[in-house]
């Protein structure tokens, strides 16, 4: 009895020591925030750890939480799907830069309609989500789809119930294309929806659209693609009906003027370009201009630098869209210009 107790105790001590040892060996980069880019950050982190031995500890707690944590300086970087406005950045002494892009796709469940068959434009989509267009055979939808067989079924609107970057991008688009939407609802990570049911997460919206006949919702592109949902085509700013593809998101990023927008405050909705998908957006990283722990901040920048250089293929595998090289160059310049140590020198020189 006594012997086994001693054995147990020494085992416990050894385990504690081992735990302590690993904690010391890997001073992980710490970050927190948006859930949307979590899969790609996790994949990058895994590959980065194999290559350099440095780990990343990312908590996907939501954009709001990420912003709060970086402001409280409990993490080295925060992540948000909704970019902060330049004056908000200045107030907290933060900079932000985009990492990857994604798109938001309307999905429908209308009997007889195949993926990509239904065409909608911004105004009609806005009216559906405002509750003005209530039947699938409404004249506005028929006009855009003269050849489709549309039932007289009621439209059931499904939206996100949780605050979400996806909702922000979607409502930002509706605000740009529908004056009535801008007036009554506006754009944010959570809004006061005029109609419809709320479901939690992309999977909740997908589940509800899947089982409710006559429904329409919106999900992250990767989610729609991987689950083979019935997406719609959208008419973009140039008047063309486009399919949601990685190429169409990149076309929208190409249409944006990154260099002129302060603090990379760019939302890729309703961008010009014949091939541009009108509801796209980037996800952002927030860091302090004068980090408390310059060594940790430099480590984080090294990680993102590596991700821009070597992570594009991994991002594409997960249906994210990598940032164009021209934008990455601008990001490297911003790092050099703005993130400085206590001696006033840049803490990290970009490889780009």
């Amino acid at each position: 009895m006594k012997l086994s107790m001693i054995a147990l105790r020494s085992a416990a001590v050894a385990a504690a020591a081992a735990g302590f040892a690993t904690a010391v060996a890997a001073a992980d980069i710490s970050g927190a925030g948006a859930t949307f880019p979590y899969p790609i950050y996790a994949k990058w982190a895994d590959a980065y750890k194999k290559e350099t031995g440095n780990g990343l500890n990312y908590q996907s707690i939501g954009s709001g939480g990420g912003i709060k944590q970086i402001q409280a300086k409990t993490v080295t970087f925060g992540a948000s799907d909704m970019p902060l406005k330049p004056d908000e950045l200045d107030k907290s002494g933060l900079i932000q830069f985009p990492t990857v892009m994604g798109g938001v796709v309307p999905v429908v469940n209308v009997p007889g309609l195949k993926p990509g068959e239904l065409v909608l434009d911004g105004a009609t989509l806005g009216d559906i989500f405002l509750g003005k267009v209530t039947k699938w055979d409404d004249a506005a939808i028929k006009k855009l789809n003269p050849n489709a067989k549309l039932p007289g079924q009621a439209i059931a609107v499904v939206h996100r119930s949780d605050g979400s970057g996806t909702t922000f991008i979607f409502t930002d688009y509706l605000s740009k294309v529908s004056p009535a939407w801008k007036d009554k609802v506006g754009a944010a990570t959570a809004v006061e929806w005029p109609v419809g049911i709320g479901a939690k997460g992309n999977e909740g919206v997908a589940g509800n659209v899947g089982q409710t006949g006559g429904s329409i919702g919106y999900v992250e592109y990767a989610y729609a693609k991987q689950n083979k949902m019935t997406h719609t085509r959208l008419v973009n700013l140039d008047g063309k009906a486009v399919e949601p593809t990685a190429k169409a998101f990149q076309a929208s990023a190409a249409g944006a003027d990154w260099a002129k927008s302060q603090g990379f405050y760019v939302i890729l909705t309703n961008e010009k370009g014949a091939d541009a998908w009108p509801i796209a957006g980037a996800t952002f990283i927030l860091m302090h201009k004068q980090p408390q722990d310059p060594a940790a901040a430099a480590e984080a920048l090294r990680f993102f630098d590596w991700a821009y250089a070597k992570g594009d293929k991994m991002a594409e595998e997960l249906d994210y869209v990598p940032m164009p090289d021209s934008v990455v160059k601008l990001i490297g310049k911003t790092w050099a210009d703005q993130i400085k140590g206590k001696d006033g020198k840049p803490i990290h020189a970009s490889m780009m």
Partner: protein
Amino acid sequence: MAELTLVQEHPVSATARGSSLRRLARTDAFFHGLTRAAALAVLGVLMGVILALVIGAWPALSHFGFSFLVSQSWNPVTEKFGALAPIFGTIITSAIAMLFAVPIGIGVAIFLTEICPPLLRRPVGIAIELLAGIPSIIYGIWGLFVLAPLLQRTIQPFLIDLFGNVPLLSSLFAGPPYGIGVLTASIVLAIMILPFITSITRDVFEQVPPMLKEAAFGLGCTTREVIRKVVIPYTRVGVTGGCMLALGRALGETMAVTFVIGNAHKINASLLAPGTTISATIANEFTEAVGDLYTSALIALGLLLFVITFIVLAIARVMLARVARKAGK
């Protein structure tokens, strides 16, 4: 204990007896202190929670004032928040859940204690208790993927057709059958609180002295009369307590409700329409709540839930006291 027997077995001198008594008194005092500290710790935690909620909720409460309680608008864009829709949803879903769960729960308990063949008693009892052990997220997923489509295809269209031309009831069962909504959430809640009601009422039914029941049977009462006239009056306090415990759980249930209620910040007369509850709103929106007023409004909702639960418990106490007084007469 060990010391005590030692003292009794051996005749010892007065001083030795005195010192061991003192030691006993010391351990007693220590034990008293320990239990008192445990009790005070609970009070301390409770006060801390209240204080934290009030401080967190203050910006929203002072900004909106009384209108926070009576406004239906919940608009994160313009930062106008009112708690009426979540309060309404919380109370209505819990009330409907109780409407389903109380008769069924008590019925099951009566069956188990009075009517059930002994061979079936244990398996059915264990099955009911297992219901209580299922995590609420499982109820949520089941509600969303199994119950909601079932209701959408069968019961909801039936209700809409049946009451379509009846005044009052037609608005209660109006609208397109979404599958999820207030009624679905209430049904899931009813299933979740059923085991609480059943296991507590079963326990108190078993406390009824057999003598009373035997006497009633001896007077020629039927089983139904024994249950109505002897068992239920005797156990009224315990049954009410069990129901209130279940109600407390229904008011605060979060995950399962979030899945199936539809999460719309609107008060709708129809039970088939989507709604929201206090806890579902907090769970949905807390992670992405940017802005101090938004966060504060969510914390204020939490404070309101605390107050509602407190009121329910207080009402239960008053009711129990009244029942006890009546029985005393």
